[in-house]
């Protein structure tokens, strides 16, 4: 998968984010984003996507909107970020208000809660799959596996606050990934994204 030769059109970016936004129930929609952006359209590589996810999850804000900003920036710079964010939020903005206006009717519908619960649970399953893919694609060495397990344990099981956990784990994990002489081969074997020109410089 390579960076596309032509810049992605803003309309195509808006349309993709709009569709993902309409179906982003329960928050586990990153998997859908990954499928469309990386697998179907080839706009980004796996490495670029997962690298962006790490940033989106670590920075303040909502993962999905941060991810849209990251994808938009990567593809089209500032205007791309704005387009992606608007695309992601415009449908939910209208739907959430419409739902609030008719909430008491909606909640009374038989099966409404079940459908929503099922959709949310399925979205979580998609997220699990993506997490596994990201883990498998990660540098295959023990410190990475330890970092993943420790992060999951601290946040997912113990529910400790993110910031202190990150302040401890991130420096350790980065230090463990610092290229040493024995790693040079692995570094050189890294895929083509290292050769691609720095994105967004034209829009800077």
């Amino acid at each position: 998968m390579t960076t596309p030769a032509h810049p992605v059109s803003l309309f195509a970016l808006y349309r993709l984010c709009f569709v993902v936004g309409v179906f982003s129930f329960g928050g586990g929609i990153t998997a859908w984003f990954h499928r469309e952006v990386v697998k179907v359209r080839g706009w980004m590589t796996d490495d670029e996507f997962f690298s962006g996810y790490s940033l989106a999850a670590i920075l303040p804000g909502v993962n999905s909107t941060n991810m849209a900003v990251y994808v938009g920036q990567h593809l089209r710079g500032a205007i791309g970020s704005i387009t992606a964010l608007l695309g992601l939020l415009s449908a939910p903005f209208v739907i959430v208000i419409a739902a609030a206006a008719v909430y008491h009717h909606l909640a009374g519908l038989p099966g409404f809660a079940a459908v929503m619960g099922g959709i949310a649970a399925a979205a979580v399953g998609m997220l699990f799959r993506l997490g596994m893919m990201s883990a498998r694609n990660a540098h295959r060495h023990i410190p990475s596996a330890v970092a993943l397990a420790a992060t999951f344990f601290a946040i997912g099981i113990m529910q400790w606050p993110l910031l202190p956990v990150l302040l401890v784990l991130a420096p350790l994990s980065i230090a463990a990934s610092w290229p040493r002489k024995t790693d040079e081969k692995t570094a050189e074997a890294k895929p083509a994204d290292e050769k691609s020109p720095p994105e967004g410089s034209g829009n800077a």
Partner: protein
Amino acid sequence: MRDDPLIQLILVIAPLSLLAIGGASAIYAPLQQQTVDVHQWLTGREFIELFAIARVTPGPGSMITTLIGWKVAGWLGALVATLALYIPCSVLCFAVARTWNRYRGSKWHTAIENGLRPIGAGLMIAGGVGMLRIENSGWLAWIVAFIVLAIMTWRSMTHPMLLLAVGAGIFLAARAVS
């Protein structure tokens, strides 16, 4: 000027944007305190109701702020509240993403990328577990999540809409049986 409800909305919501570290769950407590106790824009019960609506509709659960803005000042209030929540963190994310992509290929970039990646994967899986915890639908939600995981492992290009429908179908079937 400071009494203008739109200004008030911005003053309450915008700071929360940068407080939402580790996702929006960090903002609900201060949001409730500000909107219910301090400004009395809505009752505690209404807050819970709006929270539930934002969760079952598409879009981030943090769009409860959109609904609060709507309650306070109509459509314009909804727009202002939404922008107040998403602009500050988006600007920060944009700045970091641009810097980040500019240095792609350098040694330290690769090291940071490789170091953060397993942490991102851990957060992703932890986020899924957290959602199952919030959904509060017990073991059935876990079963659906793992069925979807199995389908995606087996057929990676299955359309997401089909997967969501499978989840909804299983929940409806379970409801019919019980």
